[in-house]
């Protein structure tokens, strides 16, 4: 991450502008790693301002994938605050800006949840999850909502 991803200007700008960033060496911060269940590096966490974990991942992310992952993590933090319009905007940004990223199918799943709560309309779930099934049919996230087609 330090050699490839963080030197990328877009990544650096995003982290500088939107997050407080901390990079602990795992063997010198074992208690903290244990607290958050981090077993391997790079062990990446997105926390709210109280330190509650809202998203995590492990392994290397190249800059484009990292920007998508970071935006998704930001959306999960906003969802944790029940800022559903804010979360919806972040998840939609993932789909619009990085539609072929690792994070995109997950964002498509959470768009449905955020839209349901942001609008108060339960039918948003079915509508948006059908879009997930259509757009990312081979993803694990599509598998999680595939029951809606059988129920229709």
């Amino acid at each position, binding site marked *: 991450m330090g050699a490839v991803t*963080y030197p990328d*200007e877009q990544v*650096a700008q995003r982290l500088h502008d939107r997050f*407080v960033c*901390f990079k602990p060496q795992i063997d010198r911060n074992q208690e*903290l790693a244990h607290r958050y269940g981090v077993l391997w590096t790079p062990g990446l966490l997105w926390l709210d*301002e109280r*330190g509650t974990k809202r998203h995590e991942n492990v392994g290397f992310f190249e800059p484009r994938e990292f920007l998508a992952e970071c935006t998704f993590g930001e959306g999960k933090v906003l969802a944790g605050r029940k800022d559903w319009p804010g979360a919806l905007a972040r998840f939609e940004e993932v789909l619009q800006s990085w539609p072929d990223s690792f994070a995109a199918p997950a964002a498509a799943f959470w768009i449905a949840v955020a839209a349901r709560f942001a609008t108060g309309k339960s039918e948003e779930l079915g509508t948006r999850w059908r879009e997930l099934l259509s757009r990312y049919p081979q993803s694990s996230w599509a598998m999680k909502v595939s029951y809606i087609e059988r129920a229709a």
Partner: protein
Amino acid sequence: MTTQTDIGWVASFDQALDQAAQRKLPIYVDFFSPT
């Protein structure tokens, strides 16, 4: 010549929590291993 934006890594987790509370920002953590 371009200037690389300073990410601004904080020195401790307590500092991360303090700054996050003050600035109402989420916290990003990257546990790393020395190579």
